Each structure stands twice: as structure tokens, then as C-alpha cells.
């Protein structure tokens, strides 16, 4: 996408275009101003926030960061988020890819019915089933645990992943399976050594969509792992933290910056892939 944009031939700069260019850049800065203000205020003292929000801090002290880092046990939260996202993602990719592959290859009617059963849940809003999901998770001992929360995402992420994989596998010629079978590969070996590498581009798309979703998800963690500080996720901890420090805006803003910083850094590094993945996911999904 970015390629075709930058490939537009450089024209002589017309005044109208220049004005538009400047206006757009100013608009984008205005658009990002709330985020800029958040960062600025995360460095201020309470008195500074109260007297003037838009002024720059007198000094860029890291005192707020040190305080919040300890108060919320930031490394723990970061680890929790990583565990939940990692477990969730691994299960979604593994189970969805093998299931979608078999369903796409099999011509039987049962396979078609099962495929429909897999993708229909995309129509069920999470809020419609949240209470019973919580009860079931409790019965299965999956609640109040980061591992359990990660496992829950397997089922919630599978419908979309199966849908995307299913469509993609259809485009891979069956002859590839057949020639691999002749070479003696079958079952899981055939899938992991021959088919799965061919799914790389869709796997990337699914990873991007699901990481953004699981990393930022709020309602499911709120229901599942809100009982103890040891199991909280970043977003959830930020939510609880702001609830406790309602008037201490400087700490709240610091917590916000710390909660969103990982996402922003990853976005800066992988911007191209993320935008491409999100578009691909939407167009296929």
C-alpha cells in the first residue's frame, strides 16, 4: 500500500497543494494533541497539573513513573499480558489452522456443517453470554488465572481465524497435498512441513488482529482475573488504578502512558505490517 503512494511522480509543488499539506499536518497534530497532553502531564507534579494542563512541566522528573511502577508492579503486569496474549495466540493459530485445513480439504457434507458451526458464533455478541462464560470458566477452574484467561481466548478467537484460514486454504492446490503424500508425508507432518509454511501471510494477519485484540481486551479480563493484583492485565490494572486515584491526575496519566507505551512502540516499529494486516483482516473477515 505504501509503495503505490510513494510511487506517485513528484510534481511541481502547487500553492493549493502546499496549503492542503500544511493544513493536514496541523490537523494531525491537533488530532494527536490529547495523547501529547497525556505524556506532558505524566511528568508533572499534582500542583502543576492543577494550575495549568497545557504548560510544559518545569522539569522532566521520573518521580511519577517510579511511583506508579512500584504501585502497580509493572513488570508483573507486563508479564501477565505477555502470558495471556502468548497462550491465547498459540492456541488460536494451532487449532484454527489445522481445523480449517481439514474442513477446507474434506468434501463431505459433515465437514461443511462443522465449518458453519465454527463460524456462526461470530454473530454472538460477547455481552450476550458473558455471565455464563464466567460461570463455566469458574467450573473449569480457568478463572482467576492468567493461563486460564489465555486458554479462554482459544475459543473466542477461533471463529474468525478459521474463517480466514478456510478461505485461504481453498486457494492452495490439492496437488501439493497429493505430491507430499506420494513423498511419504501424511497427517500432521504433511500439514506442518508443507501446508503451514504456505499460510504464512494469513497467519501474520491473524497474529496482528489477535494481538491487538487480546493485548487491549478489557471486559473478559475484568470478569475473569480481577480478583487479585497478581493476575491483572495492563488495561485492567490501569482501570483499577485510575479508580483509586480519581483526583491524582498526574499518577493516572502516568499509568495511562505506561499502559499504552508497549502498543505504541510496537506500532512505530511494525507500522507497515500492522496497517496491512488490519486491512487484510477486515477485507477477508
Amino acid at each position: 500500500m505504501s509503495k503505490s503512494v510513494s510511487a506517485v511522480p513528484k510534481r511541481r509543488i502547487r500553492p493549493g497543494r502546499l496549503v492542503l499539506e500544511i493544513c493536514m499536518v496541523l490537523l494531525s497534530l491537533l488530532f494527536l494533541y490529547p495523547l501529547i497532553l497525556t505524556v506532558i502531564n505524566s511528568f508533572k507534579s499534582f500542583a502543576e497539573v492543577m494550575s495549568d494542563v497545557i504548560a510544559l512541566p518545569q522539569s522532566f522528573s521520573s518521580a511519577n513513573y517510579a511511583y506508579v511502577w512500584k504501585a502497580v508492579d509493572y513488570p508483573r503486569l507486563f508479564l501477565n499480558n505477555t502470558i495471556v496474549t502468548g497462550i491465547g495466540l498459540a492456541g488460536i493459530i494451532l487449532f484454527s489452522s489445522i481445523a480449517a485445513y481439514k474442513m477446507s480439504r474434506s468434501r463431505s457434507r459433515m465437514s461443511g456443517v462443522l465449518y458453519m458451526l465454527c463460524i456462526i458464533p461470530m454473530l454472538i455478541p460477547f455481552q450476550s453470554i458473558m455471565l455464563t462464560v464466567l460461570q463455566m470458566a469458574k467450573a473449569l477452574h480457568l478463572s482467576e488465572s492468567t493461563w486460564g484467561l489465555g486458554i479462554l481466548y482459544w475459543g473466542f478467537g477461533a471463529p474468525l481465524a478459521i474463517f480466514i484460514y478456510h478461505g485461504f486454504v481453498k486457494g492452495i492446490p490439492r496437488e501439493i497435498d497429493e505430491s507430499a503424500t506420494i513423498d511419504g508425508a501424511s497427517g500432521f507432518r504433511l500439514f506442518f512441513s508443507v501446508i503451514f509454511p504456505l499460510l504464512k501471510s494469513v497467519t501474520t494477519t491473524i497474529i496482528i488482529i489477535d494481538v491487538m485484540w487480546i493485548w487491549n481486551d478489557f471486559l473478559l479480563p475484568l470478569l475473569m482475573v480481577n480478583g487479585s493484583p497478581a493476575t491483572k492485565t495492563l488495561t485492567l490494572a490501569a482501570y483499577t488504578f485510575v479508580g483509586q486515584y480519581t483526583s491524582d491526575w498526574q499518577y493516572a496519566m502516568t499509568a495511562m502512558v505506561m499502559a499504552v507505551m508497549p502498543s505504541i512502540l510496537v506500532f512505530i516499529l511494525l507500522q507497515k505490517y500492522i496497517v496491512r494486516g488490519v486491512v487484510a483482516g477486515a477485507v477477508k473477515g
Partner: protein
Amino acid sequence: MFKLGRRRGERLEFGLFTLPALICIAFAFYVPFMLTVRYSMTKWNGIAKHPTFIGLDNFRQILTGDANFTNAALFTLKYTILYIVLVNVLAIALALVLDMGLRSTNWLRAAFFVPYILSLVIVGFIWKFIFMQGFESLGDSTGWSVFALSWLGEPGLAFVSILGVSIWQSVGFYMVIYIAGLQSVPDDLKEAATVDGAGAVRKFFSITLPLLAPSITISVFMALTNAIKVFDVILSLTSGGPGGTTYSVAYDIYRDTFQNNLYGYGTAKALILFVAVLAITFVQLYIFKRREVEA
């Protein structure tokens, strides 16, 4: 004999490949869904050992005499319609500008997209800070009266705030979908139109917009599914206030289920939301599929 054995082997393999996903999906959706249907016909506070079966009483009460639900439904309806229209119009406008090959295109795309990667709860808090503290300072230094309004304290304005913040967070997402759509509009079509003497506006409405139809379908569909379930941003921005005027349907379900402990009643509402989502989805897919074929 041999053939039967092979078929059995194939079946076994099919099961091994598909069962893990099927089990996960069954436990994530089908089991909870069936339990939801069961609970929706009971009266239960979660403490009593067993729910009491009361048939369709919950539904009758929700649909005839529940002011909270009616207000939440109206709020969600108003929000959904305005959100779909505004976010798509703004996203198309941004996409058109970003498709013109400006030098700052890459920066602009990143800048408008960034809020989309942030958690909605956190976006809500950031804006709460801006509305409550930031606007005061901005009002002091500019003297503009817009900053002096009570953006979260007055029902009408609180609605606008929620709508605006939601759009701010997601417009970049729809924008990139439209940029991708615009890039698939062939240049020679636009050039041919220019040769035929079509102006910019004419060109947009008779060439670009019809060819964007697939992108519009996707975007409207996604905007609808997201808007009808709006929850996180309201929770952190207004918590349903002022005076309970900004409860969405999803938030109302959350309130009844987890704050008022009306398990049976809350799940009945949840089921109504599901049916509404289902109906709207089918109607929308039907309409858009027809229109796309015509285009």
C-alpha cells in the same frame, strides 16, 4: 477390508485436526449460549441455590415496562446511526486526501491510525482528563466558550463526547480500509472521466464512490457490529452518567447482571441483544449484497 481401514483412518485424522477447535468453540459459545437461554427464563440473584423458572416473564417485563432498557436501547440506536454515518464520511474524506500523494502521507496515515491501537478503556480515561482538566486550561488561555461547556456533565453533551471519542479512536481504521479501496480504483477510469469533462465532485460521485462500494460494505458492517456493542469507552468516560443518561444496551446488561445481581433478568436482556444483532446483520448483508451486484 483395506478400504474400510483407510476410511476409518481418514475419519480419525479429520477428528484429530478439527476436534480441538470444535471443543474450544463449543465451550466458548455454544455451552454458555444454551445456559443463557435457560437462565433468561428464570429469576435468580446468584446467591440462591437454584434459579426459579418463570417462563417468559423477564422478556415481558423488559419489553413493556423497563425504562432503563428502553432508554439504553434508544441511546444505542442513536449512537449507532450517528457513529456509522460520521465515522464513514470522515474516513472517506481522510482517505481521499491521503490518496492524493502528499509528501506527508506516511506520517498522516500513522497519526490518524494510532488511537486505534489503544485500549478503549484507556482512551476513555485520557479524554476524561482532557474534558475535565484540559478544557479548563484551554478555556483560560483561549477564552473560547466551547471549552467552558460541561462536556461530561450535561446529557446531550455527554452523548456527543462519547460519540466523538469513539470516532476519534477508530476513524483511522476505517480510513486505511478506504485507502486500500481507493487504490484499487483504476486510474484510467478517473482520467477518462477528466477527459470527458467531469469535475472533481462529479468524478467522486459517479466514479470513485460506486467503485468504493465493497469498502463501504465492509466498513459499515464493522462500524455497526462495534457500535451496537459499545461499552468500554462509556464505562471509563462517563460511567453511564450524568443521571444514568448514557447507558448503552451492553452497559445496561452489565449493570443488571453484575451490579444489581439480576442474573436471570440480565441474561434475558442479553438474549434480546443477540437477536437484535442477528436480525440487523442479516438485513444489512442482504441489502448490501443486492446493491453491490447492481453497481
